[in-house]
């Protein structure tokens, strides 16, 4: 565990040193802030003390931001050859992959914590449904976990960060949109399977305030699968130089 934490800490430090972390947080807060409070269907127009609008915006902005954060995780190490440096230290493949995963998760958690003033403000305006709001945050965290895991996997496949970014988006869009969309056209078993694979269905059922173990298992298995896949790819050590 300490090894994972050492890797996470280094990764986080490099995010803050390179300003990437600040850019992400500012962009995320700016984007969600604008669309929650100022532009479009804002909280005030809803005539209801609820953060549904915020959750909707965060759901999409995290979908795009996370691949951008995750793209460098392993692709950069592969490209620079530092993968050899770190994996010849007492670090196992899965510890490296988990450490990287955790770094982005912490970054996302931090930016979600910074949106707590939204929650407090809305709670002051009117009677907010605390349960639904907490579920909303839980949904965002689980969804982020899934996309970070996919991002780590995409990043393990290539030395090129842009390729890793696009690949993560490409895999992500299936879970985010396409599975749910296609499932409507297939009846029966195929349709049910596709609809179960759709991340948005599980996300929506969570933010409605119902936590089913089925949803939890879904998110956790995507996270596990992504990390396991990344570990397998790293274990193969496709040496290019």
């Amino acid at each position, binding site marked *: 565990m*300490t*090894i994972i934490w*050492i890797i996470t800490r*280094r990764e986080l*430090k*490099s995010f803050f*040193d*390179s300003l990437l972390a600040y850019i992400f947080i500012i962009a995320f807060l700016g984007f969600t802030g604008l669309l929650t409070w100022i532009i479009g269907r804002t909280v005030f127009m809803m005539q209801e003390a609820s953060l549904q609008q915020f959750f909707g915006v965060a759901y999409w902005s995290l979908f795009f931001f996370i691949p951008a954060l995750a793209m460098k995780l392993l692709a950069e190490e592969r490209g*620079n*050859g*530092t*993968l*050899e*440096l*770190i*994996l*010849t*230290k*007492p*670090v*196992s493949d899965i510890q490296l992959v988990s450490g990287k995963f955790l770094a982005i998760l912490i970054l996302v958690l931090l930016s979600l914590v910074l949106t707590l003033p939204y929650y407090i403000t809305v709670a002051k305006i009117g009677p907010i449904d605390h349960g639904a709001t907490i579920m909303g945050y839980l949904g965002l965290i689980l969804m982020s976990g899934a996309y970070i895991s996919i991002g780590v996997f995409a990043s393990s496949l290539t030395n090129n960060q842009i390729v890793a970014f696009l690949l993560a988006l490409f895999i992500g869009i299936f879970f985010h949109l396409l599975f749910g969309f296609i499932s409507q056209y297939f009846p029966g078993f195929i349709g049910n399977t596709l609809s179960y694979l759709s991340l948005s269905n599980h996300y929506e059922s969570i933010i409605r305030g119902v936590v089913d173990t089925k949803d939890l298992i879904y998110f956790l298995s995507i996270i596990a699968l992504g990390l396991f896949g990344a570990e397998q790819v790293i274990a193969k*050590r496709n*040496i290019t*130089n």
Partner: protein
Amino acid sequence: MDIQVENITKRFGYQKAVDNVSFQVKTGEILGFLGPNGAGKSTTMRAITCYLSPNEGDIKVGGYSIHEYPEKIKKIIGYLPESNPLYQDMPVIDHLKFIASLHGIEKSKIIPRIQEMVKTCGLEGEKHKKIRELSRGYKQRVGLAQALIHDPQVLVLDEPTSGLDPNQIIEIRELIREIGREKTVLLSSHILAEVEATCDRILIINKGKIVADGTSSDLRKKAQNKEILRVTIEEAEKNTIYKALQALPNTDLVDIISQSGNTFEVQSKPNMSLRKDVFKLCVDKGWILTELTPTETKLEDVFRELTMN
């Protein structure tokens, strides 16, 4: 702690990078790993450091097999990879701290240990700079410092002195020799003089196979069945001498060395001697022999002979 490499084979696709290689490095020994580019040196080192897993065979470091206890072996080994990869954005001190904490060095001991390494590797003036800003030689020193930081029992260095200036090379060689007294060191190089100066034993590898194994004098003896003489003869015409030397029954090859003087390099046929013949020839013809020096076979020649085919 010994390194025991037992019949390892590593394939990349159809190509065998390392082909059934076995050798041993004992505690207190410095083994030099020589070979042309692409001979399989780095692949072997990567297998020893548990980065690559060989297709066949086993490696034991301090009795631990790479297949069963990679985490234990990684703790024992200090490794400097070939291209010396480092986190370019990190300051030297932070990088060393990071590596030290990965090795599980106690928090209170990390700082004094880093100060020691900074001193040993001559990084005093550069320790707060980012690695990206360092020159190649300083980067190499950081690479060495990170390999040595946990006081490893086994040291695997892939071309440790590349990019260093001559003074630094001598310092690093001395450092390696000092470490090698108590510990096990395996270093690769393509600078023969370096291996000769630093190592107790030399291993030459070519096309994935070991072609020679022994001390540098052992290897030299192997190739020394031919006698090479440097001969200077005065008071005669160059071409006449050349033809006369060539005509000697034991001569294999004559080379004209200098264009101005009459200096030649004469190589004998295997296991033959030429010195007497050359002297007699001069006496018979009435030439003046001003130089007759046997040339020692250089490690370069041994290396060339073993790896060029």
